[in-house]
């Protein structure tokens, strides 16, 4: 617990900063969660028009993609839900980041094209997996407990493919590809930290309440439901053959 106390003032600063960035995004109408989570509109035209290194805008796009990406956010929420020690949070989030960075960079560089509906369906599955695991489902129903660190890193790889497909759908120019892509990746990590700070702040308060264990079951049941919705939605999109 001492761990948390010490980091309290640091956390307050983080939350204030994150909240103001979020507020800015909302004010500018950047929250566009209506459709399948992609990069669109003026951002897509910007990327298509970019020739050469333009790191900061790509960082912004990466951060925006993460902060507004409910699929990634739900998974991260599931991962940290029952992590009580800051050290564990850092380990798991790092594993997830390493996982998605590998496939994001490799996917774009090697031009690996995966159907974005299928990737997003597996990302939905990752949300289902983590919520099910959080409630102890694997041990009680199947009698086996998969290694959670390996699971989170593996799903990180899938989330990275999702990021890579979204970025590749934008006709990236070969000129400046590597710095731009790395900028996007760094942005993704920054966005993730912002989101994580807000989640942790809420979780810390929530865990202090007496009814936490009970409401935690309900919350994970809801995350499970949301995961199923995402999965079925993306599978439907794949089967219908709608344009990504």
């Amino acid at each position, binding site marked *: 617990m001492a761990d948390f106390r010490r980091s309290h003032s640091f956390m307050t600063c983080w939350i204030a900063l994150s909240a103001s960035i979020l507020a800015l995004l909302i004010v500018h109408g950047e929250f566009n969660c209506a459709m399948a989570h992609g990069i669109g509109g003026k951002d897509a035209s910007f990327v298509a028009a970019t020739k050469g290194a333009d790191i900061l805008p790509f960082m912004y796009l990466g951060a925006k993609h993460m902060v507004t990406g409910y699929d990634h956010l739900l998974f991260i929420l599931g*991962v940290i839900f029952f992590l009580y020690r800051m050290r564990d949070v850092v380990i798991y989030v790092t594993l997830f980041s390493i996982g998605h960075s590998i496939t994001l960079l490799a996917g774009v560089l090697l031009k690996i094209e995966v159907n974005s509906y299928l990737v997003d369906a597996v990302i939905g599955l990752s949300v289902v997996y983590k919520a099910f695991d959080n*409630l*102890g489902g694997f041990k009680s129903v199947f009698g086996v407990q998969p290694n959670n660190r390996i699971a989170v890193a593996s799903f990180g790889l899938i989330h990275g493919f999702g990021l890579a497909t979204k970025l590749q759908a934008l006709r990236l120019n070969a000129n400046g590809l590597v710095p731009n892509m790395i900028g996007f990746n760094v942005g993704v990590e920054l966005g993730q930290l912002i989101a994580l700070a807000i989640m942790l702040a809420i979780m810390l308060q929530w865990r202090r309440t007496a009814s936490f*264990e009970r409401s935690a079951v309900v919350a994970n049941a809801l995350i499970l*439901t949301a995961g*199923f*919705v995402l999965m079925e939605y993306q599978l*439907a999109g794949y089967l219908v053959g*709608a344009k990504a």
Partner: protein
Amino acid sequence: MTEGQISKPLPAGRMLAITLGALVVASAIVFGAILPAEFNLDPFGVGKVTGLSRLWAPREVAFDTSASTVPLAREYPSGFRSDTIEIPLRREGDPTRGDELEYKVRMNKDATLIYEWSVSEIPNPEEFYYDFHGHTLTNTKEMTVATYKQATATSANGALTAPFDGVHGWFFQNQSVSPVVVHVKISGFYELISPGDTGNEAGIIANVPADKAFGEK
């Protein structure tokens, strides 16, 4: 206790119940809301009941109506028909949104229609707007749209040769402060659209006086 898990794992029975419940709720959301609104799929008809189906719209592809290669003399397999349609429109801004509607007929490619419509109650022709257009009937991702004329006027006469199979007709909008009746006369090679179907969503009945246009009250 396993790292990153609840301190007291749920028993298998409860776990299965929660998973099944989540799956059922998720499927209800997907089949009841997301499929109708995003993909135009409505296996259980829920989207039609809730109106969510209306959120879906195919991408519109504009059709160039300026050129045609249709021969000037044409023959059609069956005889022509004539209909008179009286369309009552409420005053502008009426909360029921009864101040505007669409009335179209079904036509095959190259079929011809001649028409005459007028609104007598409006002294100022700028207070009545119409959009004469046609579009294909589609459940797929694209819909071809041909715009023939968009203008303000209180009457128009003319002829149309359909550029493609589909529904063709008018969007009428009353912008005046008084209720009006649009008198439409059409003749040619077309079919009327049953009230409620695409092209006649407002449910107008043809060949009856204006007060019966929406059915017996």
